[in-house]
């Protein structure tokens, strides 16, 4: 009972923060927090932390037979330094690696650019819709809910030589064969699945913009186009940045879609994930780990650039800077800060 009374006033947000309260509370909460956080961190350490480090180590080793100094055959892993990396950058694996790196980058840039534009348009349409809102919201979720592998098959079927896509455009394009058309097929299928998702995120951002800002601009004689560029876009930019970052990172690890839609060993759509998978399933763990480590660093670099250079605020309002009481005021302040 005594402890209950002692802890009660320390609840966050119960009163404006006073120095005394700040001094006492974190310690006790800290212990409980550590207890509650530890299962998650144990799991993450096991399924994310360990593999990342193991991959780094693995990429420095090479499997299989080799000869030691005295000419004896040595079985098992042996340390090979940066050989795996040299191999994929300049050695025998170079054409595959640079091709896959180019494909990964190309898909990421094109799909995310297209998805952002289409998603933005969808969000503007949904924001305007008053009737039929439930319908449009439900249909936007359908592409998200369909498994990527199933959507890839669906598009493979659509892009058949005598399929409905060719019937609609009145041409005979062999979409799923090597070449630029295969890239287009992947881009179209990916855009279909994820643009609505971007639309949902942007819509949520649009709904945070107070209507009076638009009204004021209209009264001041701004046209629709001007209002979009000068008000909507800057105000929705923080949300858009985070959405684009999530999409970029997702596109960089693209695997299922080209794998099922075009095929596992088609050069024109092979991504870094696919090469790493192929190497791993052929038991060349060392080079698979090198590929996946390169991809990991690529992803980390993009994320870093977005957060540090472009100021994508991933944590957003989750950030613990002030007591919760100040949250609303802070949100409002943030909005104003963006306009200026």
């Amino acid at each position, binding site marked *: 009972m005594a402890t209950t*009374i002692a802890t009660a006033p320390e*609840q*966050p947000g*119960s009163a404006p923060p006073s120095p005394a309260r700040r001094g006492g509370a974190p310690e006790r*909460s*800290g212990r409980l*927090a550590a207890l*509650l956080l530890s*299962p998650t961190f144990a799991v*993450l350490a096991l*399924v*994310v932390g360990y593999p*990342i480090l193991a*991959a780094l180590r*693995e990429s420095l080793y090479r499997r299989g037979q080799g000869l030691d100094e005295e000419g004896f055959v040595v079985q098992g892993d042996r340390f090979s330094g940066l050989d795996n990396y040299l191999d994929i950058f300049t050695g025998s694996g170079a054409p595959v690696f640079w091709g896959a790196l180019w494909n990964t980058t190309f898909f990421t840039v094109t799909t995310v650019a297209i998805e952002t534009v289409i998603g933005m348009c969808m969000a503007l*349409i949904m924001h305007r*819709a008053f*009737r039929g809102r439930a*319908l449009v919201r*439900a249909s936007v979720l*359908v*592409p*998200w*809910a*369909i498994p*990527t*592998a*199933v959507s*890839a098959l*669906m598009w*493979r*079927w659509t892009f*058949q030589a*005598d399929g*409905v896509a060719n019937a609609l455009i009145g041409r005979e394009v062999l979409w799923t064969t090597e070449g630029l058309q295969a890239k287009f097929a992947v881009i179209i299928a990916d855009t*279909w699945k994820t643009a*609505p*998702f971007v639309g949902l*995120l942007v*819509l*949520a951002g649009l709904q945070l913009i107070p209507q009076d800002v638009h009204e004021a601009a209209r009264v001041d004689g701004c046209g629709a186009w001007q209002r979009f560029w000068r008000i909507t876009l800057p105000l929705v930019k923080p949300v858009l940045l*985070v*959405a684009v970052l*999530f999409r970029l990172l997702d596109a960089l*690890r693209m*695997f299922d879609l080209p794998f*099922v839609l075009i095929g596992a060993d088609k050069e024109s759509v092979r991504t*870094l*994930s696919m090469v*790493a*998978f192929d190497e*791993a399933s052929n038991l060349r763990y060392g080079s698979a780990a090198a590929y*996946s480590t390169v*991809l*990991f660093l690529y*992803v980390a670099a993009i994320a870093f650039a977005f957060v540090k250079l472009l100021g994508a605020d*991933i*944590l957003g309002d*989750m*950030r613990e800077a002030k007591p919760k009481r100040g949250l609303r005021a802070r949100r409002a302040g943030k909005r104003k800060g963006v306009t200026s």
Partner: protein
Amino acid sequence: MTVMAKPGQSSAASSARRILPYAGIAVVVVYCLAPFYWMVVSAFRRPQDQFDNSPLPAVWSMENFSAVFKPDVGFGRALANSLVVAGTTTVLTLVVGTCTAYALARLRFRGKNLVLAVVIATSMFPTISLIVPLLKLFTDIGWINTYQAMILPSLSFALPLAVWNLTVFFRQLPFELEQAAMVDGCTRGQAFRRIIIPLAAPGVFTTAIITFICAWNEFIIALSMVNKKEMQTATVAISKFTGAYGFDQPFGTQMAAGVIVTVPLVVVVLIFQRRIIAGLTAGGVK
């Protein structure tokens, strides 16, 4: 009165303004549903009309669906595997994630921003860089073709997602209630169990749906960790269907299987659309 006072030109413009949003909605709905519609329609065609491009099947048929469930295809088993993997992943994620999210939403402690950053960063890692070493590890300890070999790696994307979603939900709860309960003599644990959990149930439920859908749709982990047909999950099984009717690729059967795998998700999504959207946008917006 005002309408009559307006000149004709402007009333035409205003009617265009009325219709335009509906046209926009129609475009969005068609964009999202047309490919899905085509999958459903193709699933209901007879195998001999499979390559018809008519908007509706000439003759509706369930033949593709019965082909999916032929014993030698083993699709029933694949569905069961998916259910086990996605279900266990969801339950584990929620048990672990709820505690963490509670701490993140309620407690004040140093390094919280760092914790949040770590949680969100782990969800960004490319799955393949986790799979390569885990594949080697699981091969060594004989876990290939087991459920745990698919469930454990699935936690890597499910757990950050769930923690983030739950934290957003928990923050919206009226914490004064919890405090009141503690003043009335509940311990913090009791307050959590009796006050917070019932109030948080909708958020937990939504998170469960989103996590389940993501785990159900997972492909690359299931593809890597399993090479025995009986252990394949549904998404992998569909992609590996071999022709039952002698086409190059049994598209009719695959479309039918795709419908079977997708329609339950779509129904759930339609029922809980409002909640799911709230959950999905939680990660990206706030």
